[in-house]
């Protein structure tokens, strides 16, 4: 589904990603953990090219997004993303947020987009919020709308960039619940998070990143129960 090969990325003279290679299979849920500054968010943002990168290749369904001839907009249609700060469009209602891209990019009829939107809103438990503006929603509700908005494009893979980090503690659960449900339905997911409980319970594989490398990767049980690398041990001892 996604192949990352020797990915390197710098911000000026600061090398953020030093050499990342990883394969992600269809329907796999990969959780990326690591200390701040380890490059995990940057790694995620390279996958849909919100960040450009200097070296390496990322193949999404066989299409190399490092290739200048690749139409990145086309690739992004199939790669949903959920942000830490939600990034809902404040000038549009909840349902308009969800319908916008299916209508403008996928060229769906308004009717079809609305139907899909309402379906997704009930799925994330917000069927009654279709016509309100994002401003009137709580953080947890906003993030669930953001997930529904990404899903409306019927993506093949979903990227989650610390989706619960900006939430009040009591709202984390409702967002993780939606993500769990999504994983159960077989969505391919890459999740950058600090929620170790989620990683353990939902993840098929956990990547531990530090200093621009993937230091260790394993099944959650193995990685949390029996970390091999010193840096993994040090990190886990601090957070668990």
């Amino acid at each position: 589904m996604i192949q990352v090969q020797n990915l390197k990325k710098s911000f000026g003279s600061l090398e953020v990603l030093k050499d990342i290679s990883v394969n992600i299979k269809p329907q796999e849920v990969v959780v990326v953990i690591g200390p701040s500054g380890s490059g995990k968010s940057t790694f995620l943002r390279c996958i849909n090219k919100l960040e450009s990168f200097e070296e390496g290749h990322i193949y999404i369904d066989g299409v190399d997004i490092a290739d200048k001839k690749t139409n990145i907009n086309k690739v992004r249609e199939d790669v949903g993303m959920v942000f830490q700060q939600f990034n809902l469009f404040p000038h549009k209602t909840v349902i308009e947020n969800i319908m916008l891209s299916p209508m403008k990019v996928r060229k769906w009829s308004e009717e079809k987009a609305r139907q899909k939107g309402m379906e997704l809103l009930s799925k994330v438990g917000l069927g009654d919020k279709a016509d309100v503006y994002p401003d009137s929603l709580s953080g947890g509700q906003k993030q669930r709308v953001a997930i529904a908005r990404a899903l409306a494009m019927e993506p093949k893979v979903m990227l989650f960039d610390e989706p619960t980090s900006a939430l009040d503690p009591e709202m984390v659960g409702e967002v993780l619940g939606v993500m769990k449900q999504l994983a159960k339905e077989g969505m391919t997911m890459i999740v950058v998070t600090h929620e170790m409980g989620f990683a353990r319970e939902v993840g098929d594989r956990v990547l531990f990143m530090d200093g621009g490398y993937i230091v260790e990767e394993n099944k959650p049980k193995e990685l949390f129960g029996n970390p091999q690398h010193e840096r993994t041990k040090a990190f886990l001892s601090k957070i668990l």
Partner: protein
Amino acid sequence: MDIRFDVIQDYLPYFLQGMGLTIGLSLIGILMGSVMGLFIALGKMTRFKVIQFPFIWYINFFRGTPLFVQILLIHFGVMPIFMSPVNPIASAIVSLSLNAAAYIAEIFRAGIQSIDRGQMEAARSLGMSHVQAMRYVILPQAVKRMIPPLGNEFIVLLKDSSLAAVIAAPELMYWGRAASGATFRVWEPYLTVALIYLVLTLSLTYVLNYVERKLATE
């Protein structure tokens, strides 16, 4: 000091006629300035330095030199290339539009850049092109923030259109000077003209406040 109301009375029809042109000049100026301003702002914000360059210098020139000088240059220098004899109203429209465009471009740029980066990223992550993201996500939000400074520019433009009197475009100030010259009076014509400008700008302020309130509650 005795006030000669008959001077005001005699010239009032001309003042009102001039007021019409003043309103017309500033309306066309703000409209054309907005269209060109958006274009210039987008040009200045491209990633390509070579394309940015002319737009940056357009803004530098029109903001960095007096409108008075621009009007004279355009009326006596540029316009004769295109028409003869030169119509002073046309010169005034061109000068005011070009000048306003430079200021409005900066208003657009500030408005667009004030929108959180995450909005563009979210739109792009949903598969929208840069143009689509601008059109459906960024600009609708930016325009709302641009209304107050744009209104301010409208007021400035309305007053600055009085400079067109110097090339004999028959707007309000032109008739003020004409009345003063013909009657050798100072207070009556100029105070009347000033009062008309004040009424215009205050009305405009009132309308703008209304629009702002309306947008704020939406």
